[in-house]
């Protein structure tokens, strides 16, 4: 791994820290996409699926634009560098990757403007999940994004695991995330 990360290494114990460097145009695009998602959410009376779909489309779009397709196919290890360099870092996302292998990458996001500045952290959570999932599935159609802790629930970081090949259990993750946040998203309406 090169410049998009700062590598902290000791024998087999390695972590990588992204190097956020905000690009205004990309931040603006995310803001627009997020506002569209919120609009659709309101129109659908709190249907989190609308947020998820909008976010995934946004992620797929970014992926098509910023991450060039690999002729010999991706591994997670090869995909992570352009994803961080072209999308994570310009979006100002600061994350520590604690594991990067051919099949899987585990990240802890400790700074994300969208979460920290939004008045609707739960919607931001679904949106962030969706857009990263859209990015991932563009390169790994059989993959899945697993979310652990999230800032919206009070945790200090958002934990994401990027998987190149989803297990049967992993395939329920999207639905789980949607349902998990649905009640919280609907609350302001009630």
């Amino acid at each position: 791994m090169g410049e998009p990360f700062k590598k902290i290494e000791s024998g087999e114990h390695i972590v990588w820290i992204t190097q956020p460097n905000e690009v205004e145009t990309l931040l603006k695009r995310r803001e627009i996409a997020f506002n569209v998602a919120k609009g659709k959410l309101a129109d659908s009376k709190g249907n989190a699926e609308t947020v998820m779909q909008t976010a995934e489309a946004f992620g797929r779009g970014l992926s098509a634009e910023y991450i060039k397709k690999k002729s010999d196919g991706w591994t997670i290890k090869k995909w992570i560098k352009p994803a961080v360099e072209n999308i994570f870092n310009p979006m100002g996302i600061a994350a520590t990757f604690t594991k990067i292998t051919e099949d899987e990458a585990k990240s802890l996001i400790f700074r994300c403007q969208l979460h920290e500045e939004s008045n609707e952290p739960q919607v931001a959570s679904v949106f962030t999940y969706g857009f990263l999932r859209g990015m991932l599935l563009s390169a790994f159609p059989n993959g899945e994004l697993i979310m652990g802790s999230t800032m919206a629930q009070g945790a200090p970081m958002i934990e994401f695991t990027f998987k190149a090949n989803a297990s049967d259990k992993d395939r329920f993750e999207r639905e789980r995330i949607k349902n998990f946040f649905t009640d919280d998203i609907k609350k302001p309406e009630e």
Partner: protein
Amino acid sequence: MANTLIDGLKERISKAITINQSVGIILPGNNYSDLVQALFEHIISRPEDAWVYVTITKPYENLIKQFGDLSDARNIKFIDCISRAAGISKADPNCIFIESPTMLEKLGLEIINIFKEVDENTDKYLILDSLSTLIIYNDPEIVTEFFYHLENKTRARNIHTISLAIEEEGADKYLNKLIYLNDKILKVRDSFI
């Protein structure tokens, strides 16, 4: 519910840190915001004390944005061990930035240097946020050694310490060992007793 939890935390922290030299707080990840809120509110309520908040978990800038109200506080200084490593620090007179979360000797020096400038008669407190994140970036044995050194130094200088340990699935054996080096352990649960 959250306010009850925060108030409860404030009360327990206040009591624990008055009686004990070192307090370890074990908390589920989801209670992190509540705990930090409680700590910040406690700090504001005690302007006569001197506080140092060491953050390895979240950048100083983000802590201030999220938990606010500390920009005018004169009784707290921050040490940020993560921002520089992510290339995102801006200079701030209220915060010392350390190049990397692996520079533990430097961290120890900066902590003691800050407290050297505090009046002898002022009560001194150190918050370490967190032991869990230290273990993400460092060999657990080095974190253990660092923590021993830190506890010895702070005890010798009558500095009270509060160390955070954020629980995850599959408890880390080192973290369990470390946190129990403290004189008092507080375990945070949603149904706060």
